[in-house]
């Protein structure tokens, strides 16, 4: 259910999850296995609008994190579950393998240490490759690369589709999602918590704080034990599919204090992605790219991969990782606020760990609420049908039945009107251009929505029965159209 209007009386829930990013959505899905009255509060128009929308899309093997940390445990478990989850949720996931390259002979020790750490974390199949062996797999490794750690279980996933699929599945299993609903205040009350939002008051026995870079703000509303989440900006460049096969595995450099460094990877849809930078900030909204950041990517990626065709960049973007001071995930009940479960500091490998994070948090809730199983729980979700994956015969049968699959709307990514209608009409359907883009890839190709955006706007306006000028890029004040021809600048359109 989508929230509408102001409410005078508190809406009562067993569980409120703050944030519809990948952690919140994974938690919601795991929670939907039980009979529970729960809702996800999201300040944005859609799911997957913060940290979850702008990252590397990597399912890490799990050799980075220090043994014994939550990151180490949940990454390996998350990675292990990803194959089955992707199958159940009908989303693309590929184990393309990952490589950490080392360009100095004397740093072999660090590579071996990483390998050793991975083995302790339970990562299967790790091995150190000589330059010759590495080059056989990846001919475009930089000339200076001397050794590489290879992890066959490393993978790539579409971060939007994973997040969206988890949310859709949770929703169809009974979890409510209230969008455009910003949490303004949280108070401890006898029965649990009172949550004041821009759309009215809520009450819940348990709160899951999955608010990404804002998790500290909510934690600090209920706990004296203050938390700080530092937004760490990562900038990226995305390349045309023409050059998507420059590397086949994900290529990392030896990690340092600020993370895993600039990587080069194919995306699960066949683009080349290069980034991220790492820059600690104070501003939790600063997901803008910078001249310095983009220059740094160009500088650094050449140390691991050569022949990067920078002329083929189709877009650049930045995301904010939510970094805790502890350098680990914080998944625990706040010590002085019973029932307030933090799911905070979910920086990398957060996406990789998300299946495990959802399970972990749901289990904590179950222990407190002793919920009954949901008898109608369905663990599968059908994704948007992509006619491009069908044979000509199947495709023609589809078009005969639903002619909208015979019209291409986005030329670059070959997205049909049928797919866009599906994205709009399905549970938690798209309301904005970005919503359509993340669900169907319309506008994500080399022309970056130049041709298809007017057509997608028309479809959105028709389907949601609003006028064209009400359509936004991503909710809020992001309206595409500002007026009508020859208007006099006065009053509304």
């Amino acid at each position, binding site marked *: 259910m989508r929230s509408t209007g102001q409410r005078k009386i508190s809406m009562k829930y067993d569980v409120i999850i703050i944030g519809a990013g990948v952690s919140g959505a994974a938690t919601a899905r795991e929670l939907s296995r039980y009979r529970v009255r729960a809702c996800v509060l999201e300040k944005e128009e859609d799911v997957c609008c913060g940290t979850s929308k702008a990252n590397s899309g990597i399912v890490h093997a799990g050799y980075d994190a220090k043994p014994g940390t939550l990151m180490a445990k949940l990454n390996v478990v998350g990675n292990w579950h990803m194959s089955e989850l992707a199958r159940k949720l009908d989303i693309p996931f590929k184990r393309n393998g990952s490589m950490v390259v080392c360009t100095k002979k004397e740093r072999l020790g660090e590579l071996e240490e990483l390998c050793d750490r991975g083995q302790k974390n339970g990562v299967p199949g790790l091995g150190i490759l000589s330059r010759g062996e590495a080059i056989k797999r990846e001919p475009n490794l930089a000339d200076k690369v001397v050794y590489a750690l290879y992890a066959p279980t490393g993978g790539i996933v579409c971060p939007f589709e994973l997040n969206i699929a988890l949310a859709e599945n949770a929703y169809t299993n009974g979890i409510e999602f209230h969008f455009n609903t910003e949490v303004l205040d949280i108070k401890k009350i006898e029965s649990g918590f009172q949550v004041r939002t821009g759309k009215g008051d809520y009450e819940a026995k348990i709160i899951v704080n999955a608010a990404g870079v804002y998790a500290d703000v909510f934690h600090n509303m209920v706990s004296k034990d203050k938390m700080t989440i530092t937004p760490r900006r990562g900038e990226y460049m995305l390349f045309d599919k023409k050059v998507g096969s420059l590397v086949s595995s994900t290529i990392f450099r030896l990690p340092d204090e600020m993370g895993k460094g600039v990587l080069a990877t194919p995306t699960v849809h066949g683009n080349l992605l290069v980034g991220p930078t790492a820059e600690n900030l104070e501003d939790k909204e600063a*997901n803008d790219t910078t001249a310095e*950041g983009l220059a740094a990517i160009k500088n650094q990626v050449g140390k691991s991969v050569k022949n990067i065709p920078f002329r083929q*960049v189709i877009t650049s973007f930045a995301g904010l990782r939510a970094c805790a001071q502890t350098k680990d995930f914080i998944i625990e009940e706040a010590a002085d606020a019973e029932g307030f479960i933090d799911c905070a500091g979910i920086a990398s490998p957060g996406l990789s760990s998300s299946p495990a994070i959802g399970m972990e948090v749901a289990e904590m809730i179950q222990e407190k609420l002793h919920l009954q199983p949901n008898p109608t729980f369905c663990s599968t979700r059908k994704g948007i049908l992509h006619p491009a994956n069908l044979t*000509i015969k199947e495709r023609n049968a589809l*078009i005969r039945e639903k002619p909208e699959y015979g019209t291409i709307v986005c030329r670059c990514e070959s997205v049909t009107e049928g797919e866009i209608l599906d994205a709009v009409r399905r549970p938690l359907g798209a309301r904005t251009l970005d919503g359509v883009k993340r669900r169907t890839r319309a506008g994500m190709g080399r*022309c970056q*929505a130049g041709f298809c955006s007017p057509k997608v706007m028309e479809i959105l306006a028709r389907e949601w029965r609003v006028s064209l000028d009400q359509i936004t890029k991503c909710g809020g004040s992001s309206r595409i159209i500002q*007026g009508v*021809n020859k208007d006099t600048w006065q009053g509304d359109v």
Partner: protein
Amino acid sequence: MEKYEIVIVGGGPAGLAAAVSAKEEGAERILILERDETLGGILNQCIHNGFGLHTFKEELTGPEYAQRFIDRTEELQIEYRLNTMVMDISRDKVVTAMNREKGMFQIEAQAVILAMGCRERPRGALNIPGYRPAGIYSAGTAQRLVNMEGFLPGREIVILGSGDIGLIMARRMTLEGANVRLVAELMPYSGGLKRNIVQCLDDFGIPLKLSHTVTRIHGKERVEGVTVSKVDAAGEPVAGTEEYYPCDTLLLSVGLIPENELSRGMEIHLSPVTSGPVVDDRLSTDVEGVFACGNVLHVHDLVDYVSEEAYLAGKHAARYVSEIGNSKQAGRGRKISVSGQDGVRYTVPSQIYPETMEETLTVRFRVGNIYKDRYLSVYLDGERILHRRRPVMAPGEMEQIILRREDILKRHDLKSVMVKIEEV
């Protein structure tokens, strides 16, 4: 499988002229495949005038110009299918296409004419730092919203790039009630036609800043402003020259790219300069029986030249079809390269067959800089056969020279034709 003599991909100005010409040349079964819901291509949203001065000796709007060719297409009873997307063309010219009525279907063609046009370079290709708010449009997208839908994408406008569509949109947005604050151009010269600078900017008092670019986009949800900086000779922003322009919209007119996805799929040899196919004097690509014309071949300044070029492609496609199985087709004789240097960036065509070429051939090209008072010269190997004084040549305007077959045939051991710019 359906069979056609000629399948034309694209029903814009190039595809229409090619179809008309092929029919006039005697081809019978011609089919135009158009992805949009009407014929005419991008001309349908070009509602300004200035089209057709060369072709019809009168000034028409884009839709009027297109209509003349659409009418002729109908008169000649040339078949076309609208809302039809070509998905793939094989090297043996099996065209796979799709629409709502027929689903996916295949056509066996004897000849194919590529006339898919071009698309605009997006923001991403420029790597402009900042947020990614609503309010950033390529000029052509804005043109569609304004001219076809009747909506203003914004009220306070900055335009980056002085390509023709950007200039035309500066005037259009002004006429429709918006305030165009600035046109910034990275290069020290405009990429558009001189007449558009005068008629679209100067006449409306819109400032054009050369050697300037947008170095930052402000506003998280909707554009709130842009930072504009001066650039040095290498195109790098000069620190300390930043100026902030509040605006709600940034229009981009930063170049056009021929849409050669299908050509690439066929492994047609493409030119790294034009991004279009490498063609010979018949506008044939290196895949036999596949011709190219219009903006998919190289980006034109005037539609009149598109029509002229497409006529040539249509004619040669029709002749190619009529000669299939005919002994005359065997061999075109020796091949000579045509190329540009010293400021001439490329030539179309880039190969000619003197023995079988037409009496005269128009060679089109663009120059890489502003050249004032220079000579345009043509060399046959070392020998200069043309030396024409030109007061000004600019990258925004397409240039042309005429090659005569007899000049070339005279020289039996000729290796190459070279077009260049020379000092006075």
